[in-house]
Each structure stands twice: as C-alpha cells, then as structure tokens.
C-alpha cells in the first residue's frame, strides 16, 4: 500500500487542497496542532470521534479518509491469530490493525497464507471423510481388494500345487479370468471416482461451495446471463462444484423466466430493492426477487442464503460486511431471525464492528416449501439482502461476522470467546 493510501496522508491532502492551515483545522477539530501534525504524518492513529471531527471540518465523510485496510483483511488476520492461539502463545491480537497499517504487504501475505492453510486443512479433512465414510469409495475399494485377494490366492494355488487335477486347474483359470475382469471394472470405477474428486485440478479450493462462489464472482454474479446452459468441466473441475453450480444456474433461469425484463426492471426502478413490493406487484415469490435483485449485472447488493439449519448455502459478499468462510456466522444476522418467522419481511439496520463501524440495511425473508406434499418434511430457506444504509439510519443492531473474531465484549448471542477480547 502506498503512503498516500494512509488516513493521515489523506487528511493532509484534503486540508492542503482546501488551502487550510494545520493550526486552524486542529482548533476547529478540538485537537492540538502538534497532534494533527503527528496524525497527518501517519505517526498517530486516528479513528472514531477525532476522525469524525476532522472529516466534518474538511467537509468530507469520515469513511473517505479510512485507510483502505479492508475488513476482510483484518478478519483473515484475526483468523490467523485465532488459529495460532490454539497451538501456542497468541500473537499481539490487539495490534492487528496497527500491523496491517504498518506492514500492509506482509499483512496481505500472512492473510493469504492463512487462507491457503485453512483450505489445505479442509482439503485434508474432506479427503479423510471421504476415505473413511464415503460408501461409494468404500464399495469400490472393497471390490478391488476382493478381486486382488482372490487373484493372489488362486495364482498361488496354480503356482504352488504341482499335482493339481485338470478339473481344478480349469476351474481356477476360470476364476482368474473372472477376477481379472472384476479388478479391471473396480479399478476403472475407482479412478473415475478419484478423478471426479477434482482436487488435482483445483488444489487451492477444496470446498465445492467456494469453487462455485468464485466462479459466480467471475461471472459478476449474473447467472441469468448464462442462458440456462450446462456447466462444463472447463468452468469447474470438480463434479460436486459443477452439480452445485448447475443447481444455481437452473434457479437463475427459473427466476429470469418468472421475473422477465422489462417488467422486473420497471418494478425495480419503481420500488427499489424492496423484494416484497416487487413480489406483490409481479406475483412472484419473494426469494426469487431477492436473488434477481442481487444477481443483476454490476449489482453492489450483497446476498446470503441459508437453509433451516442455518448453514450458508450462498454468499455474495459486499465490501465491509464479512461473511465467514469457516465456522458459523453471527446468530444476530436478520437472516437467521427470519428463519423463525417464515413469510415475514424483516428489515434491520445492522452495524459491523471495527475502527470505523459500517452500517447496512439487511432485508431478510424466509420461505418454507413442501416438496413432498402433505406427507413430506417442511423445508425452509432464508435469504438476506445486504444494502448500503442511508446516512440517517438511526439505531442499528450490532452484529459481527463470527464469534471467534468478533471484538464485541458484551453480546447476548456469543457462542464462544473471542480471540480479540481474551
């Protein structure tokens, strides 16, 4: 990161552009000129009320002076610290932001390494699960081992038994042919299965959902623009990811058919990102409208979708709102509140923690479905749009990303201690 990207440098640039003297600005912001001098030379950290007063004096939003250290980077660094603290002494967690400020290159590298490490650990875990629990793999291996066992014993008999009667010899030759065929089939099935696992083609991404989200991001989340095509191996190497992606492509096609343009664009222009009003106007289900809103070309609206267990099925990120890659999300998100209140629109202004807290309007809606009819189970899916909050957004609900890296000391929903407050 260049020096110009730092908060102090930005403040200095704004002041000189306005032709204001350091002493005047300091006085109006109720700080000493020497302190402002240190701030402008990035030798003192500035945040909260002081930053707000300086921003007011300079006539710009405080966020415009924020140093560009992204919430995601801080989240990753805290995640790295959390992982390290489980194995030994924790690093200086309280100075995470300072570290990111002073050594942005190293901080980025550490965050990348932490992500890669976490992905590798998940790959290993996934492989271990597959090796020990996957019935398909277990059956394939059993088939191969049985064929090899029989081949080895039968070959041994043929080689070791000099006086083998002709009828037994013929019988064992027949068994050999049978087991050879069986081994070939079993080996092919095993190779096909391992090939479909796809890790060799995507060593950095082990979880199909992450593969799919990276692929969607590359398409700018505009799945409807893919015209309902089939997902190919060139798109996503692993079979599981292709299956997931195909599911979302099909959903996007259905959404586009149910909410065609120009009717959808007209309704969106009229009501804005209000999925309930658009739904009422166009007669489509609310979740479809939410997906359609977030997956328009160049849309800056974030989206999270979960099932009845609270497991996140899809995360379309938005700058400043960190959706955890690993571990469970903050239970205070309206996304989860909606799960308990199906078919009820829930709108909450939420505020994320951090040196410069960020606010968003979260609109959540949960929709039950009964694919098995009267005798099947009820399924629920909840979606949450993450929209920019207006300047006069009033009281906000404090939320976090995930407990482990949330700095809030008082939280009724906390599941586990935070590494930031330990």
């Amino acid at each position, binding site marked *: 990161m260049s020096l110009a990207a730092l908060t102090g440098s930005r403040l200095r640039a704004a002041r000189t552009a306005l032709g204001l003297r350091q002493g005047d600005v300091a006085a109006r912001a109720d700080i000493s000129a020497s302190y402002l001098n240190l701030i402008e030379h990035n030798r003192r950290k500035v945040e909260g009320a002081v930053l707000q007063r300086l921003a007011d004096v300079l006539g710009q939003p405080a966020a415009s002076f924020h140093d560009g250290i992204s919430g995601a980077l801080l989240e990753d660094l805290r995640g790295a610290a959390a992982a390290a603290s489980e194995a030994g002494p924790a690093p200086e967690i309280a100075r995470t932001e300072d570290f990111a400020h002073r050594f942005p290159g190293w901080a980025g590298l550490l965050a990348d390494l932490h992500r890669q490490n976490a992905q590798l650990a998940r790959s290993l875990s996934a492989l271990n699960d597959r*090796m*020990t629990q996957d019935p398909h793999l277990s059956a394939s*291996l*059993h088939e191969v*081992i*049985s064929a*090899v*066992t*029989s*081949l*080895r*014993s*039968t070959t*041994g*008999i043929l080689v*070791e*038994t000099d006086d083998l009667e002709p009828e*037994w010899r013929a*019988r*064992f030759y027949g*068994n050999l042919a*049978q*087991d050879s065929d069986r081994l070939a089939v079993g080996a092919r099935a095993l190779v096909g299965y391992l090939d479909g696992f796809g890790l060799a083609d995507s060593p950095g991404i082990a979880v199909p959902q992450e593969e799919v989200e990276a692929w969607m991001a590359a398409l700018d989340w505009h799945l409807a623009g893919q015209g309902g095509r089939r997902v190919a191996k060139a798109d996503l190497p692993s079979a599981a990811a292709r299956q997931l992606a195909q599911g979302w492509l099909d959903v996007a096609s259905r959404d586009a058919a149910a909410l065609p343009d120009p009717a959808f664009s007209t309704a969106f222009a009229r009501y804005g990102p209000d999925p309930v009003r658009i739904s009422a106007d166009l007669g489509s289900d609310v979740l479809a409208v939410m997906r359609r809103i977030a997956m328009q070309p160049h849309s800056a609206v974030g989206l999270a979708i979960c099932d009845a267990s609270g497991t996140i099925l899809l995360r379309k990120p938005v700058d400043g709102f960190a959706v955890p890659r690993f571990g469970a999300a903050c239970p205070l998100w309206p996304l989860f509140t909606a799960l308990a209140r199906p078919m009820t629109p829930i709108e909450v202004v939420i505020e994320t923690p951090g040196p410069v807290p960020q606010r968003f309007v979260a609109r959540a809606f949960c929709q039950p479905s009964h694919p098995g009819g009267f005798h099947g189970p009820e399924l629920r899916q909840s979606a949450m749009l993450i929209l920019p909050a207006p300047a006069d957004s009033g009281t906000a609900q404090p939320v976090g990303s995930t407990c482990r890296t949330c700095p809030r000391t008082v939280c009724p929903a906390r599941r586990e201690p935070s590494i930031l407050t330990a």
Partner: protein
Amino acid sequence: MTKRVLLIEDEANIAEAIRFILSRDGWQVRVLGQGAGAQAMVAQYQPDVVILDLMLPDMSGLEILTALRADAATAGLPVLMLTAKGQGRDREAALRAGVSAFMTKPFANADIRAAVRDLLGA
C-alpha cells in the same frame, strides 16, 4: 480326527481358494456365503475354528463374533477374522469383542495356512 473349519465368506472365488488350500492341508472345510444362519451353522457343524469375513453383505462379521462370544458354548471358539486395511476402527472393535487373530486381505496362502494351524495348535 480331522479338524473342522467353518469359513464364512461371501466372495465365492476367495472362499473356493481358501477351501482348496485348507483341504489340501488336511482340514475339513465348510463354507457359508452370508452372515445369516452363522450361529446355527456353528452349533450344527461344531467347527474347531471359524474364519470370518468382516464385511458380509447382510451383516457385519463383528455382529457374528459378538454373538459367538455371548454364547457359553462358543465363547472360546478360535475365530480368525479377515479384514482389509483401512478398517482400523472395526479391528479395534473386533479385538474388544474377543477375536482370536486377524488376517489382512490380500494374504499369501502360506499365511492363512499358518494362521489356522496356530489357532488349532497343530
């Protein structure tokens, strides 16, 4: 008197090979191709040793072993269990249930001969 071996193995070619090997070694061998009826067969055939595959199509070899150990008449019957690598947890469970010995597939013919001889004290 010829010693009797009951082989409980669903893979026909493996069963045929083991039966041939042990018969040549002088044992009387009977084969049961599934888990169902194993206890009744033991009661009726009165084997001196049981060779038991861990993975049977209808039930686990572990269930049969547990049932045999629960019956006073067969609690001390030598049982050689056939397993594959990667079945560590099942092997531990079999040890706790009182298995006499293991043989890992694929095995050499000499090994299974030696294992049965050991169990029969021959």
